[in-house]
């Protein structure tokens, strides 16, 4: 097992390097370098452009050198935890992202658990009650979940909450807690606000997982060993739970790999609509104002997160499924 984990970690390295390259490309993408746009921004707002500062910045980011040298400079700072300067916020990127990244991880994890619980219950029901009204209903709901863009679902839920319950949903904290330091009460407040984001972000993933679980469980239920167990008089409920469900559950672990990018994607856009203090709105704002160090760093972290999640799911899968060999 240890060698397996070690090998997977080694395999992750090139992926992480590729991610850093993509992020670097994103930082470099806007026409002209960021310094020129920074200078125009400064002169537009009527501030005096300090020649010495410009020269210092140019040297610091190696703007007069070829791209691979710039990449190397940038990378060597990234490894040391220096992600550059956010020109919009006039703060190091470092200080801006951690709390928001943490909240993104928290929401994604909560949504994943929510997705699992809901899709397990519904998938189990749909497979054991194939072609019943409930099955058709959930199948329909699943298709709707796949077809509705998450931001639209968020808008509709917000509208319903406002129109029929007079509630203003959105955000992750009540006003009292928004600026408060972390405490137990603040965590409780956070959990109360999690419901709507969880449903919205999880909708597409849940729909997909239900279909997978239902199909797998249906396949398993037709196998001879189930017949055998039934003829031997094993109670139906115990029979299903004990063997077929365990096999049908494996895709849950193996699909984390593709559901994580989906979750982070959904989280990004939902957060903008629901006004969550996570990475989504920060990224959007950074992109709009061409604050590229912030944007690039965020993309890099979000991508690394999903890669890390895939690694975790592979390890979980190897541990769950005895058919997978480590070597």
């Amino acid at each position: 097992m240890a060698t397996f984990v070690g090998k997977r970690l080694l395999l992750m390295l090139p992926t992480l390097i590729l991610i850093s390259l993509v992020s670097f490309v994103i930082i470099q993408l806007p026409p002209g370098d960021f310094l020129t746009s920074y200078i125009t921004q400064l002169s537009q707002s009527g501030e005096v452009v300090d020649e010495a500062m410009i020269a210092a910045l140019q040297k610091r980011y190696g703007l007069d050198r070829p791209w691979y040298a710039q990449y190397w400079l940038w990378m060597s700072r990234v490894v040391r935890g220096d992600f550059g300067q956010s020109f919009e916020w006039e703060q190091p990127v470092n200080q801006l992202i951690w709390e928001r990244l943490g909240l993104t991880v928290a929401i994604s994890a909560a949504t994943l658990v929510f997705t699992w619980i809901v899709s397990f219950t519904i998938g189990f029901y749909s497979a054991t009650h194939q072609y019943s009204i409930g099955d058709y209903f959930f199948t329909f709901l699943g298709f709707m979940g796949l077809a509705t863009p998450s931001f639209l679902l968020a808008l509709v839920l917000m509208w319903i909450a406002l129109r029929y319950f007079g509630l203003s949903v959105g955000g992750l904290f009540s006003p009292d807690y928004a600026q408060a330091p972390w405490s137990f009460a603040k965590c409780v407040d956070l959990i109360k606000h999690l419901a709507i984001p969880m449903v919205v972000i999880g909708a597409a993933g849940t729909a997909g997982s239900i279909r997978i679980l239902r199909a797998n469980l249906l396949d398993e239920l037709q196998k001879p060993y189930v017949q055998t167990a039934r003829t031997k008089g094993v109670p139906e409920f115990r029979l299903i739970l004990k063997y077929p469900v365990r096999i049908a559950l494996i895709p849950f672990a193996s699909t984390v790999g593709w559901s994580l990018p989906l979750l982070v994607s959904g989280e990004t856009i939902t957060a903008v609509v629901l006004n969550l203090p996570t990475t989504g709105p920060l990224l959007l704002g950074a992109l709009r104002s061409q604050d590229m160090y912030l944007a690039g760093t965020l993309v890099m972290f979000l991508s690394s997160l999903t890669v890390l999640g895939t690694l975790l799911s592979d390890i979980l899968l190897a541990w769950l499924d005895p058919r997978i060999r480590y070597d």
Partner: protein
Amino acid sequence: MEVTKQFKKANVSDSSKVKQAQEIYVASQWQLIWRRFRRHRLAIAGGIVVIIFYIVALFAEFIAPGVPTKYDVKYNYVPPTRIHFTSEDGFSLRPFVYGYRREIDKETLRRTYVPDRTSKHHIHFLVRGEKYKFWGLWEADLHLFGIKDSGAPFFLLGTDRMGRDLLTRIIYGTRISMSIGLVGVISSFVLGVLIGGLSGYKGGIVDTGIQRLIEFVRSMPTIPLWMALSAALPPHWPPLRVYFGITIILSLIGWTSLARVVRSKFLSLREEDFVTAARLDGCKEARIIVRHMLPSFTSHMIAAMTLAIPDMVLAETSLSFLGLGLRPPVVSWGVLLQDAQNVRTVAHSPWLLFPGLAVVLTVLSFNFLGDGLRDAADPYAR
């Protein structure tokens, strides 16, 4: 007597069965695919909806009751007009709409529109109305349906902030939103066939490398990446160039699923006897691929492409909604949904969410159609 009847009956059904079997035996692959596809009712329904949407996209100018740029601030945020059949004069087979009277609430100063029972406008087919340029080529003013008095308000799905007719704009938006999926899928198709084909045909280290690349692309969260890439499109670009820029960005990530289908098909076909036979006959590699291998999985490719289109439509809508994709004055469903970004606005005028309904319907239909096509793609499987 009874026995002979039964015998005859059995005979008849037997002979029809034999006939059916013969038909299947001589049917071409595409006939078999069609037979199987026909049994998938939802797929048929999805296909019909998709065709209707493309017809709407093709003839948007004619089908829309107005033109998308016409605005009238006097009529901003007008709720959807109700179509009536009965009035105090009794029932009329020709539906009609009432005009509007604007009233301002003295306390909240909010405008409300109440139907004006004195002005009545019948809805006619093929009316002359606003002038437009059909496909940008011919001047015309014929609309599929509408009211004869073109000055009167006729907003079946309400209006937006500028008093523009939402139905007209959704119909015009169909053109952009439906075509961006098609163009995007075609460019990802080219990428997917090239890269997936290379991977499956060459095998070995090329295959491993390309598989790693596909895994890498699939492990990236798409929306942040799309956002970052489309934010880099220069703001001064003309709309058409932005449109193609966005499609290319979408297909840069969307090619992977198609590449996977192509690769797996190549891997399984490579070992087939007919490929070996072609090779022994001295066919060139390009000819083997194009002439012998491609036709045998065209149906799979069509199914995979159909399933890839809804992702493109959703992506374009999301990007435009965030203001990073297409921008006004271009009309797409995502651009229209930008107006609904604020929940307060939505609460007052929920009809602004109608473009979203079009998106959901499109994606749903494409998914059903694609599912049916995928099941039918291999008509020999049981």
